[in-house]
C-alpha cells in the first residue's frame, strides 16, 4: 500500500508532488473548504491525473493533514492498494425522508462477502445520520466496519458538498467499500467528554428536539446546571453536550446542542433524542478532549495485527471539538498520531457528525463530538 499525503495552498502550491499511481486500486481523497470554486481547476487536475482511480471527498471547516489542521487548503491523499481493492457508490439524500433509503442503497451496491469496511462521506446538512446508519446496517453484516462523517462548512450551517465525478455536489452521500483478505480495517470513536449529575429520563422529545427531561422543561434544567455559564447560550451549549444512553445501558452517544428555543424551553440537537432514553449532562475541558482522541488511537493500536507496522489513519473529528479546543486543536491530532506506530500517516476532516460503531459493540451509530479514527493496513 502506497500512501502519499499532500495539500495545496495558493501561495505555495502542492506540498508534495502528485505521484503517478493511477489505477483502479487507487483512492484519491480530497478535503476542502466550503467555497471550492477557486479550486475547481485542482479537482480537474486530479481527475485528469488519476482517471482510473476512485475519487471522493467532502467539504470541511478544516482538513487534517498529519498532525496539522489545514483551514485554507485542499488536503489530498493518494492511496494505492497492492492486493486490496475498492469500490464507490453514491446516493442522493434530502433529509430524514430518504436518509435510510440512501444507506440501504449504498450498502446494497457495495455489499460483498469480501467487504472489510466502508467509508461514508455525507452531505452535512441534509443527512439524518441515525437513519443513514440504520439503513446501512439493515443490509450489512454486523462485523463490517462502517466509518465516516458528515461534511461540514465554515460553521455557518449553510452549504456542504460531497465530491462526485470530480464535482462538489450537495444532497449526496458516497460510500467507498474496501475489500481484500489482507486488508485490516478498523474504526474507533472516542469522545473524552465527562458526564456529570444524575442520569435523567427524556420524557418528551420529537426527532432531534428535546422538550422535557424528568417532566421538566429541558432548557430550564440545562440552565440550572450551567449556572452562570448559561449566560453564554446558545454558543456555550457546544461545551456541554448530552450523553444519551441506549435502553440496554450498554453504550451512549454524545449529542451536541445546535440551538435553544426560549419560547418552548426546548433544545435542538445534532442527532435524534429518543423518547424514554436516559440523558446525562457532559462537560469537556481541552485536556479531556485530547485525552479522548489519544485513547481512541490507543484502543485502535491494540487491535493492530502487527503493532509496529505503520498504518494509514482516517481521522474524522467533530467541528464542535475544534470550537472548544480553539487554537490548540492540533494537539488532538498530534496525540492520535503519536499513539499510532511510528511512520503512520493521518488524513481526515472536521465533521458535522461521525459514523462509527457504538462505543461498545458492533454496527454503526451517528456520533457527535467524537474523534473517530479508522486505520487501514495492508498485510503482506
Amino acid at each position, binding site marked *: 500500500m502506497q500512501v502519499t499525503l499532500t495539500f495545496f495552498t495558493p501561495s505555495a502550491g502542492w506540498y508534495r508532488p502528485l505521484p503517478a499511481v493511477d489505477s483502479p486500486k487507487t483512492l484519491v481523497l480530497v478535503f476542502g473548504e466550503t467555497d471550492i470554486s477557486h479550486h475547481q481547476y485542482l479537482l480537474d487536475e486530479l481527475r485528469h491525473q488519476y482517471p482510473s482511480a476512485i475519487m471522493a471527498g467532502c467539504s470541511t471547516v478544516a482538513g487534517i493533514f498529519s498532525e496539522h489542521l489545514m483551514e485554507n487548503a485542499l488536503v489530498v491523499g493518494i492511496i494505492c492498494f497492492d492486493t486490496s481493492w475498492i469500490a464507490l457508490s453514491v446516493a442522493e439524500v434530502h433529509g430524514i425522508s430518504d436518509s435510510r433509503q440512501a444507506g440501504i442503497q449504498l450498502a446494497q451496491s457495495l455489499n460483498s462477502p469480501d467487504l472489510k469496511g466502508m467509508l461514508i462521506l455525507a452531505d452535512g446538512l441534509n443527512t439524518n445520520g441515525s437513519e443513514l446508519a440504520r439503513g446501512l446496517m439493515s443490509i450489512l453484516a454486523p462485523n463490517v466496519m462502517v466509518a465516516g462523517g458528515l461534511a461540514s462548512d465554515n460553521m455557518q450551517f449553510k452549504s456542504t458538498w460531497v465530491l462526485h465525478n470530480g464535482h462538489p455536489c450537495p444532497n449526496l452521500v458516497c460510500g467507498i467499500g474496501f475489500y481484500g483478505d489482507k486488508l485490516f480495517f478498523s474504526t474507533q470513536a472516542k469522545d473524552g467528554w*465527562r458526564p*456529570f*449529575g*444524575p442520569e435523567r429520563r427524556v420524557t418528551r422529545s420529537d426527532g432531534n428536539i428535546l422538550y422535557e427531561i424528568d417532566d421538566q422543561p429541558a432548557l430550564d434544567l440545562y440552565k*440550572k*446546571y*450551567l*449556572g452562570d*455559564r448559561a449566560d453564554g447560550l446558545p454558543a456555550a451549549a457546544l461545551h*456541554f453536550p448530552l450523553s444519551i444512553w441506549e435502553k440496554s445501558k450498554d453504550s451512549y452517544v454524545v449529542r451536541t446542542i445546535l440551538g435553544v428555543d426560549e419560547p418552548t424551553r426546548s433544545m435542538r440537537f445534532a442527532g435524534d433524542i429518543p423518547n424514554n432514553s436516559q440523558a446525562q*449532562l457532559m*462537560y469537556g*475541558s*481541552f*485536556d*479531556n478532549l485530547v485525552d479522548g482522541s489519544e485513547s481512541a488511537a490507543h484502543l485502535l493500536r491494540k487491535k493492530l495485527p502487527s503493532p509496529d507496522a505503520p498504518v494509514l489513519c482516517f481521522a474524522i473529528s467533530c467541528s464542535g471539538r475544534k470550537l472548544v479546543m480553539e487554537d*490548540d486543536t492540533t*494537539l488532538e491530532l*498530534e496525540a492520535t498520531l503519536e499513539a499510532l506506530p511510528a511512520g503512520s500517516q493521518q488524513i481526515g476532516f472536521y465533521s458535522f457528525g461521525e459514523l462509527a460503531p457504538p462505543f461498545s459493540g458492533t454496527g454503526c451509530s451517528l456520533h457527535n463530538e467524537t474523534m473517530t479514527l479508522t486505520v487501514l493496513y495492508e498485510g503482506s
Partner: protein
Amino acid sequence: MKEVNPLHRRLQKQLQRTGLAQGSLPDDLNRWQDFLHLVDRSYAGTSDAQYLLERSLEVSSQEMRKLYDDLKIETEQRIEALHRSEQKTRFMANMSHELRTPIHGILGSLEIVKSTDMDERQKLFVETAYASCEVMLDIINNILDFSKLKAGGIELEIIEFSPRELVESISSIMATMAQEKNLEVQCYIPEEVPARVKGDPARLRQMLMNLIGNAIKFTEQGEVYTGLELRSLGDTEALLRFEVRDTGIGIPPAMQKSIFESFVQVDASINRRYGGTGLGLTIVKEFAEMMGGRVGLESAPESGSTFWFEITFPIVEISQHVHQAKHLEACRILVVDDNETNRRILENYLNAWQARATIVSNGHDALHKLEEALADNNPFDIALLDWFMPQMDGIALAKAIRSDARYDGIPIVMLTSYGLSLEKQKQAGIQAAVTKPVRSITLRDVLTDTLRRHGGSAPKPASKLPPFPELALPVAAADAAQPAGGILLAEDNSVNALIAITMLEKLNLPIDHVTTGKHALKALRTRAYRLVLMDINMPEMDGYTATRYIRKWEREGILQYTPVIAMTANALKGDRDRCIKMGMDDYLPKPVKQDELLRIVKKWLGQPDTAPAT
C-alpha cells in the same frame, strides 16, 4: 516520579507536548510559553469542571431537599391521617359502646318479659320491639365493623355452633320483620347439614341479617326465602351455602358488580326511598372473604334477587339427632299449602323424618285425600295446614274437617305467619299452631307433641305459661346472714344488674350486687363466693384491677380460688384475650343472653344441670 497523580501526569504530558521533557532545561522561551499556555488551559478546564460539579451537587442537593421536604410533609400528613383514623375508630368504638349499653338494657328486659305470660297481641309487640332492637344492634355492628374493616382490626372468632340453629333463629326474626308487608317467609335447611361446625356465628348472623334485611326492604310482595345448603362434604370440612332469595325489585345487570362496594346502592333514588347505609353488602363480602369464602348474586330487575355466600367450615359433629324424629316414622301426615317453596320444604323435612307425607296445594284436594285415605282404610295420623291460602283458607279447611266426625281422631296443626290465638284455635278445632318460617326442630317437636297428646283424642287447652317473675332486688354485701356459696355480681349499671340478677334467679343462689371493683373486693374479703361476675368498666376501680387483686390475694392465701367471669359490652377485638390475660376465667359479651349466662355460670359452678339448693 514514582507516584503519578493526575496532575503530575498532566504536567508531564504537557512538558512532553511542548518538547520540554528532554531532560535539560531548555532556554527556548517559546516552549516555556507554550507550556504555560497549556497549564493555563488545564487550570481553566479544571476550574470549569469544578464549577460544573459544584453546580451539579447544588442542583442535586436542591432536589434532595425538595424530596425530603415533600416526603416530610407527606409523612406528617400520613401520621395525622393515621391519628385521625385512630381517633375515628376509637370514637366509633366508644359510640358503639354507648349505644349498645342502652340497647342491651332493652333487649335484656324484653327477654325477661318474653318469658312471662302474655296474650298474643302483647307477645307480638314484645317480639317486634325485640326484633327492632336487634336490627338496631345490627346497624351499629355494621358501622363499627365497617370502621374496623377500614382499619384492618377485625379478628374472626372460631367457635363451635350449629348452622341450623343459626339460620332458623334468624329466619324467625325475619318473620317478624316481614310481617308488616305480608310477605311469605320461607326457610329451608336440609337434614344433611352438619350438626355442629366451627366458625364465627356472630358474624354469619350479621351477614345473613344484612341480606335478609335488604331482601325484606326491597320486596313489596311475594316471598323471602332463606336457605342453607350443603354444597360439598369432605372428611373434615363442609362447604355451606347460605342463600337469601326475594321477589323484590331486583338489581340491574350493570349494577351487579359494584353492588358489593361501600356506600353503593342501585341509584340515589333508592336511598331516598328505602334508606340504608349502603354498608351491609360490603360487610357481607368482606366477612365472606375473610372466612375464605365468596359471595354472589343472581338478579333480574322486577323479578327478584338471590344473594348467597359460600364458606367452608371445619366439621365438629356431623349427625343430627335423628332418633328424636323416630316418633314420626311411618306416620301419615297430610300437608296442605298453596306455596310451592313451602311445600318443598315441608316435604323435605317430613321425608327426612321418614314420615309418610301426602302433600296437596289446596283445601279441596285435601278433603279429597282425607276421604280417599278413609276409603283405603289407611287414615291420616295428623294434618298440617297452611292458614293463608286462596279460596279455602286453613281455618275454613280446619272447620270443614272438624265438621266431619270421622276425622275427629286427626289432630290439626296450623302454619301461621302471625300467630294464632288460643281462642281462635279452639274455635276452629285446631290442636297446635306453628309460626312461619318453620324451624325443623320446632315443627318436629310440635308434631310429635301433638300426636302424643291429641292422637285420636279431643283437644285440650294449652298449659299456662309461668307468671311474670318477682324481681327481688338484691341486698348489697352487708347482709352477713346469707350462707356462703353465692354469686357476687359487680356491675355499675343498674339496668344491666337488674337483668343479670333476674336471669340468675333460676339458679336459686344468693346473689350479692356491688357497683364498683372496690366494693367487690370488700365483699370477697367479707365472705366466700362460688363465682364472681365482673363488669369491666366501673367507677373507682375497674374489673381488670379488681381481678388482679383477687388473683394476688389468692396467691398469697388470703382468698380461696373463686372463678371470675368478665361481662363487657366492649365489642373491640382482643377483649376476650385481654380478659383471660388479666386473670379472668371466662368472658361473657353483652348483651348477656339468659341461656349463655346460665350455661357459663353453671359451667364454672361445676354443676351443669341442677342448681344447688340454698
